[in-house]
């Protein structure tokens, strides 16, 4: 009989078990529920139901709008910050960067509770501006995830490229628009994918802000708490499909840009 020998591959076994139990298996269960009805028969009614129900479609659009606006606001705040940080000749840049992302270190519920109090103080009644509050909360929570990748991309840019552009007759604005901005697209894409997708689903932010509007995450939650496993699973599956499409699309752009930069460094 062959005796079992410890190899490097066996180090992967614990994770493989984890993957099987907590990722692959639940996914299969999810697919099963999504395409069956209460009697356990195959059906696509959950799918058609999602796209015909004005409520679910409305929530999808609403989530999309919150995520889009949050992403845009994050981008507008993060890009100048990251750009200034990365291009300045400040000493101890890393410390400055830490200050900007330090909010991540404070406990999430504490942060959100504080934000809720501040917003209440300003707006009086939080229910008046649900959309705005959702965007503010999400931005507060996700901004560091936008700053970091953009900062990294810009600070890795070869300064000689900017000098070359100026040498060839581009003034500061032209050099920024034609060199820095296009070359920081990979950072922007990572930032966007790290903000946009969570912003579509992270309903805990809304809960903490006593926001009763529905986004995709809260919708799924409500289906499950009403014991509608089949409808909830389908929504989760649709969301998963959206995420996969988005990730594949952005990764493609990301890779080609990285290859370009890598080639120039060789």
């Amino acid at each position, binding site marked *: 009989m062959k005796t079992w020998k410890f190899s490097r591959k066996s180090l992967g076994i614990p994770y493989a078990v984890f993957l099987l139990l907590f990722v692959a298996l639940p996914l299969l269960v999810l697919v099963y529920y999504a395409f069956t009805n209460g009697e356990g028969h195959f059906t696509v009614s959950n799918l058609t139901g999602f796209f015909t129900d004005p409520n679910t479609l409305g929530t999808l659009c609403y989530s999309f709008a919150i995520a889009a606006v949050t992403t845009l606001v994050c981008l507008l705040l993060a890009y100048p910050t990251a750009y200034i940080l990365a291009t300045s000749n400040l000493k101890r840049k890393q410390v400055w960067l830490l200050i900007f992302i330090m909010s991540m270190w404070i406990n999430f519920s504490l942060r959100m509770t504080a934000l809720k109090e501040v917003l209440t103080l300003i707006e009086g009644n939080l229910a008046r501006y649900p959309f705005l509050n959702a965007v503010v909360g999400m931005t507060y929570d996700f901004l560091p995830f936008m700053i970091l990748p953009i900062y990294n991309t810009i600070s890795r840019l070869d300064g000689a490229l900017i000098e070359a552009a100026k*040498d060839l007759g581009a003034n500061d604005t032209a050099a920024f628009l034609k*060199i820095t901005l296009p070359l920081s697209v990979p950072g922007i894409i990572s930032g966007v994918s790290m903000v946009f997708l969570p912003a579509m689903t992270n309903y805990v932010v809304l809960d903490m802000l006593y926001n009763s509007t529905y986004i995709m995450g809260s919708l799924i939650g409500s289906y499950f708490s009403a014991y509608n496993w089949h409808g909830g699973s389908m929504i989760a599956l649709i969301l998963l499909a959206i995420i996969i499409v988005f990730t594949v699309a952005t990764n493609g752009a990301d890779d080609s840009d990285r290859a370009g930069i890598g080639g120039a460094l060789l």
Partner: protein
Amino acid sequence: MSRSDEHIIELKNITKTYDTGFTAVSDFNLYVRKGEFITFLGPSGCGKTTTLRMIAGFEIPTEGEILLNGKNIASLPPYERPINTVFQRYALFPHMNTYENIAFGLRQKKMSEDEIRRKVRRVLELVDLEGFERRSVSTLSGGQQQRVAIARAVVNEPEILLLDEPLGALDLKMRKEMQLELKEMHERLGITFIYVTHDQEEALTMSDTIVVMSEGRIQQIGKPEDIYNEPKNAFVADFIGDSNIFNGIMTGKLKARFSGGEFDCVDDIEKGTHITAVVRPEDVIIVPPGQGTIDGVVTSVIFKGIHYEITVESGKNEMVIQSVHSATVGERVGMKVDPDNIHIMIAEDHTNYFEADINSAFRLEFNGKVLDTSVTKIIRGSKRTEDGQIVDANGDVIDPRKMRIIAAIRPEDIEMTDQVDEGLVDGYISDLIYKGDHYSYVIRTDLAQDFIVDDEYLWNMDDHVGLIMPTEKMSFRLKK
């Protein structure tokens, strides 16, 4: 090629001091003639790149003027100067293809698409890259990227083309080819080239004029032949080609004493003047012992392909010789040099240089005495590891015993003493001159090494003295 006397660019009293207080370039004065190929040559950190960057507009001089066709452009931004640069690592735009890279400068000038296409095509022909328009620059080889970088600069028809060590990233064969091509391109385009390199051979091959720089200052400006044959000081002699450099003294009319012998020379310099003598390795003739000016013992012979490199030690002096004839290690030989081939310079500075040994404990030793310093203090960033090895700043293990250390000490920092044993070395006073407020002595050791010592007191000729040299007054460097 037309090379007029018109000065296209003139640098006047340029000084660049950084916020950190470091002065990269000081009191730099230079004019460049229209159409000239001029090279800034020097070791890294000599200020050559900083000077180039000031001409390009990336750095603003702290003091001085840069006159382009008589107009001061020192504070003009780079995009307003009719000057283009070929960058050290090309700095091609990775998100644009070859065509767009080259067209970048023309687009800034809002040129019509037709004209851009025509100009890009013409310049691609010039650099032999026809058909590469759509290629992504990251798929090009190093040599091709280099050509795109040149094309991108010259397509703008600049008045001056700046080249910052453009061939540094290429392999030797490629570099040789590009040298010739650049030279040819210079002739064809008639643009003024300002070239920066640390490679003396590259400078000698390509330039009309070479500016040798060291520590932010111009050491010598001249044609390649002049720089090679008539170096102005010990630095230039050492940097351009292999040289034997000796401290010495004029002992009579057309007679100079250095390396333990009295040589005939052609430079008429007043007797008693301290000099630096330069002898090129290829100019030393090996003769039977006793028949040359000096004798010595062969310590190493290395075959170099077209010649042998023979090192001969006479006393503490060393002579490197290039000869087509081999020699045997340990053999005693005589050496002579044709008077025409001895280049004598009046020593501006009489700093004494001597070679120190490294002992098994990694401490410096000279004349059998241990100096109060260690290798780790001399090699910047190096330290001793627990297992007794020396690692450099990058963490690589180095063997200091393979290195040689040159110690330098100024004449006024050496003290003479009657207590011969107290000195690091001892010797006899072989020469003295009164220099107004002090005497300048030459002390010759038993190994025929000369030290120059300044002292305010009068000693006698042939006095036996010890030389006290405080370690803290010495400076050390690695011999290259």
